[in-house]
């Protein structure tokens, strides 16, 4: 998130328009409220997009993918590479997400598959992979490549103007959430995947190919990570270590989201988004991030199983 602030459109802050239109008080209040909402939406979409892939992989397989940041980096690099070749941005972003997903399936088959019974070792293996990829990219591609600018476009509410692209990111975050919901709750794959999540042995006995389900889920997780990188690529400086800017947020969202990913991630992102937005507005980015971490540490003390535990209890 650090680098995200350095370049690109103003984010979390707003540009005062030169041509002030006199507004009635209620219009002012609305503008103020919208500006708050905009800041919240900005943090919320960052948290959701950064953590969705990690959350699915963790929820399905109990594996924390330490190379998550590198899939994000991969998505960003592919997007920028394709745009520099002349591919339109949205198409490049979709292709980057698919590319990351395919690489994810390959990684699952070659490495992650061996570690489902040893989740701690899977952490180490994917961390080793992350080191190799980050430093390998530094060796091969170099420390930075030519970036692409944030798509133009802004809209005004009251005195403030807002970047349209940030709103598109918010829409994408909502789309990702609903996409996950539909995929896991409304499709045949989702039923089998949830069965595998609950009891892999039983699902296998009933004829589900759990190995394939795992591979596909890991691919979806990696693809979502790639999508995150693709979506944020225009707003960031691209460096091989950029994954690190995303993983703190994605880790803490998954940690306080809890074991049930379908229920936990969104409330966790709403909570962290609110904390972050309030602190950012009052005290700046640094306090925002550190305050978020403190909030997380407090939450795990109070709710060790995360937000999904409350919802699951309610549901019973």
């Amino acid at each position, binding site marked *: 998130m*650090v680098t995200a602030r350095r370049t690109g459109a103003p984010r979390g802050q707003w540009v005062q328009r030169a041509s002030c239109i006199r507004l009635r008080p209620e219009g002012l209040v609305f503008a103020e409220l919208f500006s708050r909402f905009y800041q919240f939406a900005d943090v919320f979409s960052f948290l959701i997009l950064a953590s969705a892939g990690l959350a699915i992989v*963790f929820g399905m397989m*109990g*594996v*924390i993918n330490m190379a998550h940041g590198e899939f994000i980096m991969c998505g960003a690099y592919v997007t920028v590479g394709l745009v520099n070749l002349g591919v339109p941005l949205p198409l490049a972003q979709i292709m980057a997400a698919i590319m990351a997903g395919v690489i994810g399936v390959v990684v699952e088959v070659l*490495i992650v598959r*061996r*570690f489902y019974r*040893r*989740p*701690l*070792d899977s*952490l*180490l*293996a994917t*961390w*080793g*992979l*992350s*080191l*190799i*990829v*980050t*430093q*390998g990219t*530094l*060796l091969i591609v170099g420390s930075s490549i030519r970036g692409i600018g944030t798509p133009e476009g802004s809209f005004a509410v009251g005195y403030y103007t807002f970047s349209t692209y940030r709103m598109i990111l918010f829409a994408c975050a909502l789309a990702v959430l609903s996409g996950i919901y539909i995929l896991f709750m409304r499709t045949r794959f989702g039923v089998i995947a949830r069965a595998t999540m609950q009891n892999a042995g039983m699902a296998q006995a009933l004829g589900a190919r759990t190995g394939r389900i795992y591979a596909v889920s890991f691919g979806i997780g990696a693809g979502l990570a790639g999508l995150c990188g693709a979506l944020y690529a225009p707003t960031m400086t691209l460096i091989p*270590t950029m994954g*690190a800017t995303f*993983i*703190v947020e994605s*880790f*803490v969202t*998954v*940690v306080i989201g809890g074991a049930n990913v379908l229920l936990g991630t969104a409330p966790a992102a709403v909570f962290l988004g609110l904390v972050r937005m309030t602190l950012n507005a009052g005290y700046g*980015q*640094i306090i925002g*991030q*550190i305050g978020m*971490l403190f909030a*997380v*540490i*407090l939450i*795990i*003390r*109070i709710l*060790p199983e995360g937000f999904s535990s409350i919802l699951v209890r309610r549901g019973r």
Partner: protein
Amino acid sequence: MLSLVNGSQTIGNSRGFWLAFLAVLALALIYPIFADSYDVGNFSYFLIWIFMALGLSLIWGYGGMLSFGQTFFFGIAGYSYGVLAIIMGGGSMTILALVLSVLIAALAAAVLGYFMIWGRIGGVFFGIVTLAATLSLAFFLGQTAGPEWHIGGARLNGFNGMKGMDPLTVGDIYIEGTLLYYVMIALILIVYLGLRMLVNSSIGNVIVAMREDPQRAEMLGYDVRKYQLLTFAVGSGLAGLSGALYTSWGQFITPSSIGLPAAAMPIVWVAFSGRSDLTATLIGSFLLLFGFQTITIYSQQAALVLMGGLLLATVMVMPQGFIFGIAQLVSSRWKRRPRPKKKRDPDRDAHSQMRRS
């Protein structure tokens, strides 16, 4: 008390092992006579990190808590040493600064550990919460470039790093060069033997019991959480010792020694060596540090790729660690021989590697 250095929680309890140990120690002691001072300085640099590795071995290998936050405590102590040495004004006070900064790191570990352990955070979450804290600290310190970020006369200086603190000093004598080397050897000896006694004591047995099965240990009447907190604080204090020594060694510390990829390094050393044994960790970490430093001269990225590859290879091929695995292999081979009198020590093979380097 001293007999606790041998026990079931450590490998290398035979007379042969201790003879080899003494031989290595003797070699280490006479090394500065033969080597030039630059090499001795480099050697002390590797030795700085050994404490962090031993601490992680205690937390992770013995206590079963996968902490990714060793560099968090390394950084806290490193920066504390810098700040304290500047505020308290150098001289013999640097020794006090060293002690205080290690205590600060252990205290930070106790606070963070309280929230995690009493919150029943375990397994993979323990790792990622500690890593999140580590990365946040690196991020925070990276933002402190401005002049408003200072404690007393000590400026944090953001990514440019903090400097201007005195190295460890007694009276008028800076502890540097060969003297620092001997101080390092002495500290490692104390820490290594101390940890061996700790893990072979009754406390150590509880620590291992809670790694094997926390519930069973609890049923036996031990408050597992207190032992976990103790293990975490001691191990992190050792990371802090590394941090304070590091700042003193170079009179310099930057946030990059906290964040990625630095945070992965202790994990690689300890995983590769064999986390569940202190001796294996000691030998393996030293070898890896030596190798890493040699390759870094040519290309840091290549060295880090190699480290990542080693981590991946370790968990795929020999999850218990290469040095530990080799030691076990050798020991089982020699135990099968009919004449137990000539039993060779399992660790000697690894030790001879160390001697060669």
